[in-house]
């Protein structure tokens, strides 16, 4: 049973197409497992449709007949999903496809990098840290993350295991959608490591002592 969902503001930005690919991936993971948010998302697209209706039209040069001609000249483009065969033979257990497509190996065989005792990460982007993070984090049972706030926004999707903070317990499929000023201190409370997918718009500012030490290395 999912208890933590996407905020209205995040669904809206997803609908208009103002988010990064990393944020989209994370949102699509939650939408895969959450019919409730999929249903909510429909209203945002419907508003987009109404906004399109209400706009003052520009002048177009092309005639509709030309479109039909062009369509018949072009070969039918078939959308390929190249990773499909690969995916079915892999252990993608519990991982929605938008994320599974990005993994070079099953999740337990990824080349995790240890960044602190009990804490490992797998980077999903090569972009510079100032442009935001996109990574998997694996945190050992009982691990407590230093208290930190977020300069912009942090989205977290729980892949497996669970953690708790002042907002409640987060289980597989749940999403933590934190606004800029939210201060939190998550503690892993599952018996297995808690693996989560994290996307941020900008680096996080740690306020705790441990945070100050590890921030340069992990940047979450």
């Amino acid at each position, binding site marked *: 049973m999912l208890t933590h969902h996407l905020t*209205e503001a995040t669904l809206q930005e997803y*609908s208009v*197409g103002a988010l990064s690919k990393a944020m989209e991936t994370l949102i699509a993971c939650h*939408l*895969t497992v959450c019919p409730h948010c999929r249903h909510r998302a429909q209203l945002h697209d419907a508003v987009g*449709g109404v906004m399109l209706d209400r*706009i003052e039209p520009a002048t177009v040069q092309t005639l509709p007949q030309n479109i039909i001609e062009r369509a018949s000249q072009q070969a039918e483009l078939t959308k390929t999903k190249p990773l499909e065969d690969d995916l079915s033979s892999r252990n993608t257990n519990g991982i929605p496809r*938008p994320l599974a497509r990005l993994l070079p190996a099953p999740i337990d065989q990824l080349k995790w990098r240890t960044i602190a005792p009990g804490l490992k990460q797998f980077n999903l982007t090569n972009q510079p840290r100032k442009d935001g993070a996109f990574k998997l984090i694996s945190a050992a049972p009982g691990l407590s993350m230093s208290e930190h706030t977020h300069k912009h926004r942090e989205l977290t999707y729980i892949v497996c295991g669970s953690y708790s903070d002042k907002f409640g317990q987060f289980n597989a499929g749940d999403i933590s959608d934190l606004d800029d000023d939210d201060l939190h201190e998550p503690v892993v409370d599952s018996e297995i490591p808690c693996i989560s997918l994290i996307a941020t718009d900008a680096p996080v500012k740690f306020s705790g002592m441990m945070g100050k030490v590890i921030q340069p290395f992990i940047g979450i």
Partner: protein
Amino acid sequence: MEPTLQESTKLAEQASINERMQRNLLAIASDRDETAFADFYAYFAGRVKSFLMGKGMNEDTSEELVQEIMITVWRKAQSYDPGKAAASTWLFTIARNRRIDYLRGNSRIEVELDDYMLEEDDTVVSQEASLNLIQQSSILEKTLTKLPQDQQQVMHLSYYRGLSHGDIAQWLSIPIGTVKSRIRLAMQTMRSEFSEQESE
């Protein structure tokens, strides 16, 4: 608040256009109806172009993208489900995705409907209970025009200028939290208008 006579007339007009556009899509899908396509194109092509240009795309690129988007309409009309979305909603998603594709060089990441992880919606909505989508669009349109000015402003900047909430905050020199709460309030109003109509 009751709409004025003029507003009611305008809303009724829009509703009949919405219905016609839906029929057009269905005719394209079933009969490759070129007249239906021409009518759909006449109404929407200029709107899609304006929509793209409003987000900072130049005229030539916008014109080119409109063509591609309309080719998609012609080809993919079969995938339009009138029970799921209004014609304008369907077109909005195609235009949005094509724009992202163009700007980023890769597609918008979406739910894959054949994903074995997909959790099906078990709340079955009966035909009678689910509101007619044409009505839905009219309600949305009416509600949208009645939103407080500050909420309309952020909706405008988001949908028509393509700004992120962070950009809107900078643009208006207000905290990002204020932008988000205005968006939230606007959407809450529209949601509640919906459920009100549904329970009537």
